[in-house]
């Protein structure tokens, strides 16, 4: 199936409940980005500490403080993103958004609550995520607790237009002709440029 067909189908999916693949990819991007930012921050702190104290500072993965700060950072990353705009960086890339269960804009406190209960879906051996596949509204456990849902929110109509434009670009420069009119000399603009 071509990308064009997918884009055409996506136009009618706007506002629909987002599926498992889009949500998983968004989460994978988020966890990569947030972990990378955290690692960079640790490296920066280590560098500054070394410059100031003259001693090497290394971070042990098993360090409880580092683990606690990492958990706090993840909560801040997801919680703030959902509370402020209903989407994280990964969700923005995949074009999905968290809304209230009825489809209205998410309330900030619901965004924060969603981030708080998000780990529950992991703690139950990942069963909390099963809701995305089997629940009628594709809501995971943390969605059900926080009263939220995830929808497609990207402008697929504009994407469809861009796709059509790209597909038509080599020939669109010919002028509109009536039924009886002949093709003008020289063909399309691209050929004119080559000549």
């Amino acid at each position, binding site marked *: 199936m071509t990308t064009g067909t997918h*884009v055409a189908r996506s136009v009618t*999916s706007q506002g*629909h409940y987002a599926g498992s*693949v889009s949500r998983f990819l968004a989460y994978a991007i988020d966890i990569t980005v947030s972990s990378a930012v955290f690692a960079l921050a640790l490296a920066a702190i280590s560098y500054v500490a070394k410059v100031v104290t003259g001693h090497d500072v290394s971070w042990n993965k098993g360090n409880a403080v580092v683990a606690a700060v990492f958990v706090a950072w993840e909560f801040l990353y997801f919680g703030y993103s959902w509370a402020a705009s209903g989407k994280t960086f990964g969700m923005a890339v995949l074009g999905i958004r968290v809304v209230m269960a009825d489809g209205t804009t998410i309330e900030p406190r619901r965004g924060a609550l969603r981030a708080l209960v998000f780990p529950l879906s992991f703690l139950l051996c990942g069963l909390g995520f099963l809701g995305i596949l089997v629940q009628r*509204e594709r809501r995971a456990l943390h969605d059900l607790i926080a009263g939220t849902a995830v929808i497609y929110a*990207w402008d697929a109509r504009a994407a469809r237009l861009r796709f*059509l434009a*790209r597909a038509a670009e080599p020939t669109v420069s010919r002028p509109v002709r009536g039924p009886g009119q002949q093709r003008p000399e020289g063909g399309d603009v691209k050929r004119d440029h080559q000549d």
Partner: protein
Amino acid sequence: MTDPFETLAEHVAERVLDLIVHALDVNALLRKVDVNALLDRVDVTALLDRADVNALLDRVDVDALLSRVDVNDLMRRVDMDTLVEQTDLGAVIARSSGGAASEALDAARSQAVGLDQFIDRWMQRALRRKHPAPSAPPALRIGRVG
């Protein structure tokens, strides 16, 4: 002082005219009129020259007119495929919004939606649902097309 005979004559004339008008079959008369021949004799250009189009347009309440037009419905009726194919619109859009990044993003998103729908179809079959699940939250279902 008016002549009594003159007054009488005026009354008689008015009465006669009334009788004639009542007796006339106006519809039959209009059927006999060759409207096309009549219009051929009208110099439309000269007529338009005499009309003050600007004054006419000044009297039109464009806002009220536009408020009565359902632009969204109008846009839904536009066949974008044909429009882009038949005009330079495609080239303009491609040049103004095109980019490798946006192309990749469009492709990734649409592929993900395609996979979502594929998995969803199989899950619906596996779960043997008799009634289709709602596709969107209530607030986003109202007034949707497609």
